Every structure is written in C-alpha cells, then in structure tokens.
C-alpha cells in the first residue's frame, strides 16, 4: 500500500500515539514483576502455598486461604449467576412480551452500571445482617458469594443476550416450522448454536468475579482463614491487597505484588480461553 506523503506522516504520528497503548499491558506486567522481586529473591514460590500461615511481618507468606476464598467465592457466584443470567437472557429474548422485555433488558443494563462499592455497601448494611440473624457473624463467604453473583449477573445476561441475538433467524424459523415447542426450540436450537458465545460470556464473568475487590472486601469479614463453612468470614486475594497495601513495606509489600501477579496470570488465562471460544464462534 503506497500512501501519499501527508498520509505517511499522519500514519507515523498515529503509530507514536498508539505505542503507549500497546505498551501498557507489558508495562503492568513489568512493574508487577519488578516490585515482586525483593521477596522472590529469597522466598521460593512454593512457600506461598506451603508456609504455615500468612504473617508477613514474621516472614510467613501462605496465600492458600486467600486463594481458596477467591476461588470458592467465584465458584459460588458463578453457580448462582450463570443460570440466572442465562434465564434472564432467555426471558428477555423469547419469553417476555416486547415491552416487558425491553424494560427488563434496560434494568439489567442499569444493574451493570452500579458501582461495586455500592453493591458492597448494600451487602454490608442489608444482606450481611440478614445472614447474621441466621448464623452470626453475617459477614461471610456466603454474603460474598451472593453479592458477587448479583454483580456478575448482568455481565452474563448481556453477553448471553448478544450471543443469542447472533443466532441466525433462519435456524429459529425452521425450528418453529418443524413444530418444536418453545423450550424445544431454545434448548435444541438456540442455546447450542450460541454455546461458544455463552461460554465466552461466562469466562468473562469469571474474570470479573476473580478481580472484584471492593464488594468482597466489604462483605466477607476479612479474616485470613480457610473457610470450613459458608458462614465463615474469609479474605479474598484482592481484599488482601487492598487492606494491607496501605501500610506494607519491603518484603511484605513485595509479597502483595506477588499476589497481584497471580491475579494477573489467572485473568490472562481466562481472557485467552475466552478468545479461543470467540474464534470458534466466528467459524460457525
């Protein structure tokens, strides 16, 4: 492609502006790695799992309770949000009358825009006390799961909705012409056709849940322990960073950056997997 001179200059200028954008991800990884260095120099990675407990001031860096809390909370949130999100999408697309469907979709979009701190705040003042009445103290793994579920539900609902919208109308019409019932049509044709989009949406929601900080920080109680029941207070990886960064120095601070790197890796894996699903969808 031969460009005229003025355009070549414009393209060069644009490339210079786009460079920082391209570099940011690398920069983030670089900085995380650099700040983690001090502790990784004399603490093996395995110790982050095998140490006795998380007491950084005494040189103990066991991250397992936090990792467990993050994973349990995410899993629980997904178990709740995935079916509800898919059902919401099906509702607005196939079940509800047009006006109701539009209103419902609008509501989901609004839910998606509510800041995490407000979800956390509401969970803290309303949900946690309710759970506390069932089984003290209230701020627990369960409240974390519920709040997270509420937060990632709009993500699931909106991505599944988009995936269903991409199913060719021809499929739906032929299924209807074959006399399939509504559920037969949905379960047999629409959902399978949209399955890679749905998978990508769920992976995206998982990434969001893993990375969520404020809401879980406010409702899970922040006790560093491996949860024995749903009602035990826990501390997630993200909450750990948020709480201790303020006063952490030296190796302690570096250890927090290590957990930041771990989060980054988890998200990278999820994003790449979601990309693979999206690619598969394009071939379909």
């Amino acid at each position, binding site marked *: 492609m031969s460009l005229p001179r003025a355009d070549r200059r414009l393209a060069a200028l644009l490339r210079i502006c786009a460079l920082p954008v*391209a570099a940011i991800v690398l920069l983030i990884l670089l900085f995380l790695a650099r700040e983690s260095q001090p502790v990784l120099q004399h603490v093996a990675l395995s110790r982050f799992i095998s140490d006795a407990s998380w007491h950084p001031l005494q040189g103990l860096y066991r991250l397992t309770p936090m990792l467990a809390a993050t994973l349990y909370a995410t899993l629980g949130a997904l178990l709740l949000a995935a079916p509800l999100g898919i059902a919401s999408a099906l509702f607005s697309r196939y079940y509800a009358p047009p006006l109701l469907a539009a209103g419902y979709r609008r509501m*989901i*979009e609004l839910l998606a825009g509510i800041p995490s701190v407000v979800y956390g705040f509401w969970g803290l003042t309303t949900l946690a006390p309710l759970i506390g009445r069932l089984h003290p103290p209230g701020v627990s793994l369960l409240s974390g799961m519920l709040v997270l579920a509420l937060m990632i*539900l709009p993500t699931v609902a909106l991505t599944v909705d988009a995936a269903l919208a991409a199913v060719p109308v021809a499929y739906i019409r032929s299924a209807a012409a074959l006399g399939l019932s509504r559920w037969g049509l949905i379960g047999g044709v629409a959902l399978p056709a949209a399955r890679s989009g749905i998978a990508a949406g769920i992976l995206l929601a998982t990434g969001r849940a893993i990375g969520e900080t404020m809401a879980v920080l406010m409702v899970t109680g922040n006790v560093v322990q491996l949860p024995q029941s749903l009602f035990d207070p826990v501390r997630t990886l*993200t909450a750990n960073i948020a709480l201790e960064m303020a006063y952490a120095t030296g190796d302690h601070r570096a250890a927090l950056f290590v957990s*930041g790197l771990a989060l980054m890796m988890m*998200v990278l894996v999820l*994003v790449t997997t979601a990309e693979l699903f999206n690619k598969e969808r394009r071939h379909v």
Partner: protein
Amino acid sequence: MFKNHLATGLTWLAAALVSGMFAWLLVDLLMHGLAKLSWAFFIESPENSGRSGGIGPIITSTALILLITVATALPLSLATAVLLSEFTRRDGVFALLIRRSLDVLAGVPSIVFGLFGNAFFCIDLGLGFSILSGGLTLACMILPILIRTTEEGLKAVPDDYRLAAAALGLSRGAALAHLLLPVAVPALLAGLLLGIGRAGAETAALIFTSGYVARMPDSLLDSGRALSVHIYDLSMNVAGGDAAAYASALILIMLLLIINTIAAGLMKHWNLAKV
C-alpha cells in the same frame, strides 16, 4: 409438554427473582438516602469525618480526576482507533497485537491497576498520592472501552465514502477529517460516556493512587477523595457514617445512570442512522 411448561415457569421465576433483588436494592438505597439529600449536602465540606456536612470537595475531586482521565485517554484512544481502522490491515500482525493487548487490558482487575498506578505514577514518576496519578491510572483502565467503541463507529461508516474520496484524490487524512470522523462522532461520544461511567464507578484503583484526603483540592498534585472512595470510607471506617454513605451512593448512582442512559441513547440513535 411438561418440560416446556417447566422451562417457562423457571424462566419467569428467575426474571422475578432478579427484578426483586434489584428493586430491593434500589428501594433500600432510596429509603435511607433520600432524607439526607439536599443542595447543601452537594456543596458543603464534610465535617466530623463525613458524618455530617456535605460532599462538595469530594465532587470536585471526582470531577477533576475524571477530567484528567478523559483528557489523557481521548487523544490516545482516538489515534489508536483511527490507526487500527484506517491505516492497518484488518488481519495484520500489528493490529492483532494491539487488539490482544487491549483484550487483556480490559480484563485486568482494578486492584492490579491500583498496584501499577501506585508503583508507576505515584512512586516512579514521583507524582505521589494525587488527583493526577488517579486520573492517569483510570485513563489506562478505560482505553479498551474507548478504542473499541470508536473503532466500531469508524467501521460502520460505509466503504463507499472512502473509495469515492480516494477516487477524488483526497488524502486519507482529509477523508478522515471531513467525512469519516464527523459521521462516527455519535459512536465516539457514546464510548466516551461509557468510559466515564466506568471510571466514575472505580474505587480500588483510586485508593492507592489518588488517596483519601477529603479536603477541597488546590492543585492537581493534591490528594483527593473520589465519591466511590468516600462511600467506602464512610461505610467501613466511620461508625455512624451510614446515612451519609447512603446519600452519597444515591448521588453516585444517579450521576452514572444519567451518563449511561445518554450513552445508550446515542448508540441506539447511531445504530438507526447506520442503515
């Protein structure tokens, strides 16, 4: 037949459940927060650790942070989107690299942005806890949204215009300035508003970059407290701060609602005009 009815029933139940939760949340916030809302609340400074008084300086800080975010992110995202859409091959290596890195960037947790912002802007660049650091960190966060929407807007402009412009000997720059960008402006605006909405809701990234100070900021290098951080502080660290927190949460939600509604309206308008 039974399966069909069961599915219908379950779906309606799920929808009712979700709507119920949403209504519960909203009613709760309104009930507790409406009382404290007033013009004075909006303007005054917080007193008694925020239990009384207002959120004036906090609104100012938030506005300043968002201003920096937009001022930084807008030109960079515009340049990148134009580059991706008009000057690179759709399937080229360069475009692929940028797109991948943007996808990853979109998934990075906000606390990691906080860590990065703290290490890079606050410490390395020496900006300290400041509105500037916070704004720049948030700019990194919203780049993927802005770029994606702007690129979609440019892609939606029919190729006919590009070919006709080229046939008339117009340079790509001229075609962009006079034809393509003006047509893509609604998409640009929508993306900008979405980005602002996302940035305004951010908390974790700001705690370690713009800090906690609730005074009226004198300069961009002063530490400033954003609205979302204020809600966090009131609810977690200040006993009896709940009332103020409810009111602040209500204001935040209302502002974000307005922004997101305008953005959604713009996208719909632009989609119809795309025909």
